[in-house]
């Protein structure tokens, strides 16, 4: 995903001279092509994320579209107040990019587990919060946020993810992206975000080809009409995210669905299972797959309950 990001950002920068890239001393073997091609629009600001986000706000005030790149919690939680007050309140054109979403840097320990940022960021007014599901969605989302005026966040996984779409999907704000939809009659669907989309695609292809899968590259906002249509279509839904259960993607879906119900836009809700990290840290080392399994980020229990 990170390579898709930088490739697309390079293409955007070639045609849009407003694009500026800051990094917090991370991005080795990823950001070098940008730094070499656009030295006037790249700075490694050092290990100083609060300053990075403040600088980005200032640069954006002078017309730049500023991308801030670092790992997981550092450009997000570490600089959360700068994101809220400097970027969002001033509607600054700043894009926060975090690589290593969820347990992507699993063995590096809790410091690098990025498992709360979606929830924190989606409470901030005006923040577009995104977690594309595969490299093709990263391509599309990078282009989208580069041209979308205002604060955005994009969670990336790491590298080597399989492509789920033959072409980058066309994206409008809030779009839900079908990944696999059976020809007819499916009664259950998985709503996933971030790299859990890739996991779900593998699981369903192997074990449950009759269950549909949608990627939610936008955690905030989520298109209301598209969500309502999906909720009316399926009897069973699982939300799937590599994030704490409190306040994350599943919570966002439940909130929106309940709003639709309250507004009368939906007659009933499907049965919804939220699959997320059970509001807990994990102290042991482990690969991304190991940690996901350990924390219950799996579809088999929900899948078994359907039959």
């Amino acid at each position: 995903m990170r390579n898709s990001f930088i490739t697309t950002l390079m293409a955007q920068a070639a045609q849009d001279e407003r694009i500026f890239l800051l990094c917090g001393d991370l991005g080795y073997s990823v950001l070098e092509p940008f730094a070499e091609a656009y030295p006037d629009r790249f700075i490694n600001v050092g290990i100083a994320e609060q300053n990075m986000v403040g600088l980005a706000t200032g640069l954006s005030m002078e017309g730049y579209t500023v991308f801030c790149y670092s790992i997981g919690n550092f450009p997000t939680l570490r600089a959360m107040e700068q994101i809220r007050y400097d970027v969002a309140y001033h509607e600054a054109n700043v894009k926060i990019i975090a690589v290593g979403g969820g347990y992507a840097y699993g063995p590096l320990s809790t410091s690098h587990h990025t498992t709360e940022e979606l929830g924190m960021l989606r409470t901030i007014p005006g923040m577009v919060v995104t977690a594309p599901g595969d490299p093709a969605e990263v391509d599309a989302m990078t282009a989208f946020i580069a041209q979308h005026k205002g604060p955005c966040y994009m969670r990336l996984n790491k590298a080597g993810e399989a492509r789920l779409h033959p072409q980058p999907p066309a994206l409008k704000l809030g779009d839900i992206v079908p990944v696999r939809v059976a020809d007819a009659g499916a009664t259950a669907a998985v709503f996933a975000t971030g790299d859990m989309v890739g996991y779900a695609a593998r699981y369903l292809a192997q074990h449950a080809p009759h269950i549909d899968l949608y990627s939610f590259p936008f955690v905030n906002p989520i298109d209301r009409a598209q969500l309502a249509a999906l909720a009316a279509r399926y009897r069973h839904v699982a939300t799937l995210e590599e994030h704490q259960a409190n306040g994350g993607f599943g919570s966002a879906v439940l909130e929106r669905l309940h709003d639709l119900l309250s507004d009368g836009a939906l007659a009933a809700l499907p049965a919804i299972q939220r699959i997320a990290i059970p509001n807990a840290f994990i102290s042991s080392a482990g690969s991304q797959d190991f940690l996901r399994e350990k924390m219950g980020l799996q579809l088999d229990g929900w899948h078994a309950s359907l039959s």
Partner: protein
Amino acid sequence: MTDTTIDLARRIRLQCLHMCHTKRASHLGGAFSVADVLAVLYGGLLTADPSQPRAPQRDRVFYSKGHACTALYATLAETGYYDKSALDTFTDNGSYFTSHVNHKVPGVELSTGSLGHALSVAAGVALAGKRRQAAWHTYAIVSDGELDEGSNWEAILFAPHHRLDNLTLIVDYNKIQSFGSTAEVLNLDPLAGKFKAFNWETIEVDGHDHAALAAALSKEGRSGKPRVVIAHTVKGKGVSFMEHQLAWHYKSPDAAQFAAARAELLQEDQA
């Protein structure tokens, strides 16, 4: 210029006093300590057009002492950014004149109030100015207690590394922060030594001496380094019973204090 800026500073303080009295507002001490800095900047030193507060060629001022908002609001009113009567809405329901600085007010570049934010933003703006070889200058005004915030020191490392000599940082060094003196709470000294060690062009001035401030804040003669002007000031400056008093970080003057303070400010003649 000095006579007119001294008169401007007096009018700023009178407005601050009036606002804090009528609206039962706080932070008068820090507003008075920075009033002379603002008077010198807005009294003629800045490239500024109050009728076009966002004109591209303007000098940018980032006021990080958001709590001392009355001083900036008064300065902008006294220099024609909006009618002085707008100050009457200060803190009223629905008014943009909030009791920490609000960028919805004409002439205010950045909302502040959470400390340690504005210097980074100012550095970003200065960086953009450098990249585009712009003629305008960027000023950031911080309080002394605010330098406890680590984010400032990230920016203080950044600005000289990137040779931002179009950036001037002004420290309102009134020696008193929210809950005690800076010496007692978290000692900043030697403050000039710290900035020198961080590769800033460092100037210390009496922050109530308009000629000295005007010289220090001049945009001329920059030499590849950002400049810090450490303005040694007096919290509550201009009203004898408020000077050096922590209490005037919080208190709002009652009718008798308002009258006494007003009389002192009207009498005061430093020229």
